[in-house]
């Protein structure tokens, strides 16, 4: 069980800056994020898109913003728990017990939800009956490619993940690659390679087709795919892989007893606390009269939530407001020279 003063859910810009604020005022924190990297939407959705409304930063991309925030956290030792989703938040006296999808347990007086629009999850197939094969013969990511050896694998999607795996698995599997149109969004060299392997019959390519039906009772025997003109092809297959990118889902947050409206969490504007004492929401996921979904608003919200955390983490101490320009204590925390 990890003990911390505050647990932040979400490693996007708001979560990162909130961590900075917590550390400045002398509190510990750890950060959990379901993505395998730091940066949230900025890094997953628009790493290359310029942002023009970060105060004092005329222009920066999502990736640059993330890197700058990570640099700002350098003086502090903050533990990140990536590729983990917070599944449970349970009350335990005046503390919260938080459990992640990997079983990591935290005990903390403060939980700060900086979860954006929710956690990124793979987009799944929508055909009837797909659930019972999920994680067995229908997969959305590959942990061990050896399980496919000598088998028939049907890969759906048109991006780099789908194409890269089609190429990789064509070495020792029978690969069907199915995409809903005849253009791919993968890197050109990868697309060229797929066409080359299609010519040499190492990949069976089906474009303008989508999954229509899964056949089989205990295990998948075959799938039906349908094209734009309703023409159906039946493919024998052992595995079905879907690479349709990531979608954002509120997920387990909905089950923590919070007031939720339209996928956002209601908070007050003094502490950014939810209806549960010690649980805060900041950034895009919080909602209050006048809320703006801007990165700069997330920074402000995080700064206030951090001060609220102090009261619960250090009930016997009085919080003292200090500036980074003048406070010796803060300078020591930052590891910078004290005049």
């Amino acid at each position: 069980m990890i003990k911390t003063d505050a647990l932040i859910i979400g490693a996007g810009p708001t979560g990162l800056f909130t961590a900075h604020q917590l550390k400045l005022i002398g509190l510990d924190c750890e950060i959990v994020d379901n993505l395998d990297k730091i940066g949230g939407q900025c890094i997953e959705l628009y790493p290359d898109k310029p942002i023009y409304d970060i105060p004092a930063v005329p222009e920066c991309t999502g990736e640059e913003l993330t890197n700058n925030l990570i640099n700002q956290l350098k003086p502090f030792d903050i533990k990140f728990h990536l590729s983990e989703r917070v599944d449970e938040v349970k009350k335990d006296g005046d503390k919260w017990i938080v459990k992640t999808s990997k079983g990591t347990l935290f005990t903390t007086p403060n939980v700060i939800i900086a979860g954006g629009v929710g956690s990124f999850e793979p987009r799944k197939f929508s055909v009837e009956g797909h659930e019972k094969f999920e994680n067995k013969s229908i997969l959305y990511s590959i942990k061990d490619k050896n399980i496919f050896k000598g088998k028939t694998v049907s890969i759906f999607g048109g991006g780099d993940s789908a194409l890269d795996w089609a190429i990789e698995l064509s070495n020792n599997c029978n690969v069907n690659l199915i995409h809903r149109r005849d253009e791919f969004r993968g890197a050109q060299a990868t697309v060229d390679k797929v066409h080359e392997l299609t010519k040499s019959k190492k990949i069976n390519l089906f474009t303008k087709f989508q999954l229509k039906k899964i056949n089989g009772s205990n295990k998948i025997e075959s799938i039906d795919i349908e094209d734009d003109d309703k023409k159906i092809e039946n493919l024998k297959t052992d595995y079905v892989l879907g690479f349709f990118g990531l979608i954002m889902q509120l997920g387990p947050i909905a089950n923590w007893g919070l007031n939720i409206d339209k996928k956002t969490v209601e908070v007050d504007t003094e502490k950014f606390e939810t209806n549960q004492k010690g649980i805060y929401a900041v950034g895009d996921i919080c909602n209050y009269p006048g809320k703006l979904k801007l990165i700069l608003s997330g920074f402000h919200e995080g700064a206030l939530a951090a001060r609220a955390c102090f009261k619960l983490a250090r009930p016997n101490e009085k919080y003292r407001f200090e500036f980074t320009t003048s406070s010796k204590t803060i300078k020591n925390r930052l590891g910078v020279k004290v005049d």
Partner: protein
Amino acid sequence: MAKITYIEHNGTNHTVEVQNGLTVMEGAVQNNIPGIDADCGGSMACATCHVYVKEDWFDKINKKNEGEDDMLDQAYEPKKNSRLSCQIIVSDDLDGLIVDMPYKQT
């Protein structure tokens, strides 16, 4: 100004007047029409404002932007007449436009 009809997957109709220059996505969000999430806020970075444009309208509206089909690959049940509603700009020419919404966005 254009009258736009949004049809939910369950058949519920919503007809609203949308100002020129706004997107079809904004028209729905501003009028609290359910069925369009627009998680990324219109930056063509997600596929949660996905709509099906009625056949006779599909060729009349502005063409798909570069990258729009890439996002539509990630939409829920994309079809031939799929569009991201954040990329359809409203003008007088769109008066009478009808869009169908998918069963769900995420």
